C-alpha cells in the first residue's frame, strides 16, 4: 500500500503536464475569474445630452461621476449625435436630461430622464441602466425631501455581499470546478492509463485487494485536491478579501466530503473506460460541462426550463456551491446545510457502490 502511494506520487511529480494542471490551474483560474471575468460595473463610459444646462442638471451629472461607476466620454449637443456616439463604440449609455429640468423639479411636477443603452451586450446594458436608475432614484428622493414629503421610498440593502463583488460568486464555483477536475478527471485517467499500458493486468494478478488498488490510486489525488482547495481559499481571503464568516473547520470538512464524492465519480468513470481518451472524454462531458452549465455557477438555475432545473438537482456541484456560500458568506452552521451535505454524501456512497460492483477482479473482454 505504502509503496503504491509512493509510486503514484512519483508519477505525478515526474509529469510536467500533470503538475501544471494540478498547481498552475487553480491559481490561473482564480485570478482569471477574480480579475478578468466579473459582473461589476467599473468606469463604464457614458455620454450626456444635457438639454437643460442648469444647476440641477449639473448636480445630477456630478452625482453620476462621483459614484465611480461611470466615466464621462462626451457631452452631446444634439440628439442627432446620439447615434454617432454609439456607432463609435466608445459609449455604453447616453443619459438625456430634459429641458427645464430645474424648473420642473422646483414645481414638483413629474419629469423624465431618458436612458439609452447599447444593448448589443444585453447583460452589460441591463447592469448599467440599473446602476444609473438607482442613482437617479436617490437623486429624486433627495429633491423630494427638500420640497415635500415623499409618500413611499424603497431602500435596498445587499446582504452578505454589500459591494456586489463578482468574485464572491466565482470563488465557490472555481473551487467546485477544480475539485471536480483534479479529483474525477485525473483519477479516471490515471487508472485508465494502467489498463492501457498492461500494468493493470499485473496489479490484478498480485495479491493486492481491489480496494487497495483503488485506495492507492486515489489517495494522492485526495491530498492534491485538498491542497488545491486550500490554495484557492487562501487566495480568495488575501487577494480578494472574501470573508470566511462561518466555521473554517466545517468548510474544510465539507470540502473533503466533496472531494471524496468527486473521486468516487472518477472511479466509476475509470471502471467503464479502457483508454485514457475515453476516460478524458467521459469526464469532460459527464462531469465538467454539467458542473459549469447546470450548477448555477455561470447561468442562474432559476431561469432554466423545468427539465433542466430538475437535472440541476442531481448536480452535486450545485449543492456544494450552496454549502460553500452558506459557510463563507452567510456564516451559517451545519444545522442549515445538513440537507445539502446529505445529498453529496448519498451521491458519494452511490458511486462508490457502483464502482465496486463494476470493478472486476478479472479482465472484462468483450
Amino acid at each position: 500500500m505504502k509503496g503504491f502511494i509512493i509510486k503514484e506520487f512519483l508519477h505525478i511529480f515526474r509529469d510536467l503536464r500533470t503538475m501544471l494542471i494540478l498547481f498552475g490551474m487553480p491559481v490561473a483560474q482564480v485570478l482569471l475569474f477574480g480579475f478578468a471575468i466579473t459582473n461589476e460595473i467599473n468606469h463604464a463610459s457614458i455620454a450626456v445630452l444635457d438639454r437643460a444646462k442648469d444647476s440641477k442638471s449639473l448636480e445630477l451629472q456630478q452625482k453620476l461621476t462621483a459614484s465611480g461607476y461611470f466615466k464621462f466620454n462626451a457631452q452631446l449637443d444634439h440628439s442627432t449625435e446620439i447615434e454617432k456616439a454609439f456607432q463609435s463604440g466608445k459609449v455604453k449609455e447616453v443619459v438625456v436630461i430634459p429641458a427645464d429640468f430645474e424648473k420642473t423639479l422646483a414645481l414638483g411636477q413629474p419629469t423624465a430622464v431618458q436612458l439609452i443603452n447599447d444593448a448589443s451586450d444585453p447583460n452589460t446594458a441591463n447592469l448599467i441602466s440599473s446602476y444609473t436608475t438607482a442613482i437617479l432614484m436617490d437623486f429624486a428622493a433627495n429633491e423630494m425631501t427638500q420640497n415635500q414629503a415623499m409618500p413611499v421610498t424603497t431602500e435596498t440593502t445587499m446582504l452578505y455581499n454589500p459591494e456586489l463583488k463578482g468574485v464572491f460568486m466565482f470563488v465557490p464555483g472555481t473551487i467546485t470546478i477544480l475539485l471536480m477536475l483534479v479529483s474525477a478527471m485525473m483519477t479516471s485517467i490515471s487508472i485508465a492509463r494502467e489498463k492501457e499500458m498492461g500494468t493493470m493486468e499485473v496489479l490484478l494478478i498480485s495479491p493486492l485487494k481491489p480496494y487497495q488498488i483503488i485506495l492507492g490510486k486515489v489517495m494522492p489525488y485526495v491530498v492534491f485536491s485538498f491542497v488545491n482547495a486550500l490554495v484557492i481559499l487562501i487566495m480568495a481571503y488575501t487577494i480578494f478579501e472574501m470573508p470566511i464568516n462561518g466555521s473554517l473547520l466545517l468548510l474544510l470538512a465539507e470540502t473533503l466530503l466533496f472531494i471524496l464524492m468527486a473521486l468516487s465519480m472518477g472511479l466509476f468513470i475509470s471502471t467503464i473506460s479502457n483508454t485514457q481518451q475515453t476516460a478524458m472524454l467521459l469526464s469532460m462531458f459527464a462531469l465538467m460541462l454539467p458542473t459549469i452549465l447546470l450548477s448555477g455557477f455561470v447561468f442562474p438555475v432559476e431561469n432554466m426550463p423545468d427539465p433542466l432545473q430538475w437535472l440541476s438537482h442531481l448536480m452535486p456541484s450545485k449543492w456544494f456551491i450552496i454549502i460553500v456560500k452558506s459557510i463563507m458568506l452567510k456564516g451559517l452552521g451545519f444545522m442549515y446545510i445538513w440537507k445539502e451535505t446529505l445529498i453529496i454524501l448519498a451521491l458519494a456512497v452511490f458511486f462508490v457502490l457502483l464502482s465496486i460492483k463494476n470493478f472486476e477482479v478479472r479482465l472484462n473482454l468483450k
Partner: protein
Amino acid sequence: MNPEIAVSASKLSKSYQGKNALESLSFEIEKGSLFGFIGPDGAGKTSLLRILNSLLIPDSGKASIMGFDTVNDYKKIRRIIGYMPGKFSLYQDLTVEENLKFFAGIFKTTIKENYHLIQDIYSHIEPFKNRKAGQLSGGMKQKLALSCALIHKPEVLILDEPTTGVDAVSRGEFWEMLQKLKAQNITILVSTPYMDEASRCDEVALMQAGKIMLRNEPEEILKAFDAELWSVKSNRMFELLKDISDFSKTKLAYRSGDHLCLIPEGKFTENNSLIAYLETKGHQSVRLEQIRPTIEDSFIYQMQAQN
C-alpha cells in the same frame, strides 16, 4: 492429483462474440518444466495464458495451477504466480529501481529478500538503476520486466510473448536467462510466435486456430514427422517453387531460407526423375538433398494435414 503436475487443463473453451478463441484444450504440465506455447497471432495463446493466470474465466472446462482451481481459488493462484502480459511495458516514468521496488512492494516482499533469484538477470541492468525505464534499450527493458515478474519468488512464471519484436540476439539471451531460472525449480510457461524458439523448451504445444495441434518434447515432435523432407536448389530459385509445385510426386513445397523444402507423396525413391523434370523446365545445377525437419516444418506439415 499427481503431485508432480504444476498446471493442468481439461476441455477449456472460450469464445468472444461467437468466435472460438479456444476449442476444448486439455493438457498437463510437469513441475519444473519450461513449456512453450507456439503459434501465430490469433492461435489463442494469450486467451489460454489469461485463463491459467485467473484473469479470464473459461466458457467451459477447468484448469488448475499447483492444484488450485483457476476460478474458485484465484486468490491463492495470484499469490504463487508471476506474470508478464504481452503488451506489458513497465512504468516508463519510474526508474529501474523504482519499478522493481514497486513490484516487490505489491507482493509484500523486498528486493533484498529475493535478490538471489534475480541476481543473474538484474546485475546486467543494475548499473542503470537510476535511469527511467522508458530510456532503456529493448533488451534491458525485457530483463527488468522479467526481474519484476520474479521478485516475489513465484512457483509458476507465465510469460506472454516476451520475445515478440525483439531481435535474434536479444531473444537468444532471454532464453538463456529462462533456462537458468529452471535451476530455481520454477515452472515456466512461455508463448511465442517464433517457431525457432521451440528447441529452447522442454516441451512445446503447437497451437493454431484455438487448438493444440501437437504437444510433445521438441525432439519427439521432430521424430514424429512421418514424411521425407528434401532440400532443393537450382540456379533459378524464383521459378523453382512454381515448377516443383507442378511436379506429379509433390505433396507440399515451400521456401525455407536459401532452399526449397519438398515433401513428396510417400517415399521419394525417384529423385532422378525430379532432376530430369526440372532440367526440362530450364533449371541448371539442381541440388537435391534429404534434410532433417525443423519445428517450423512440423508446424507447416501439421497445418496442411489438418486443413
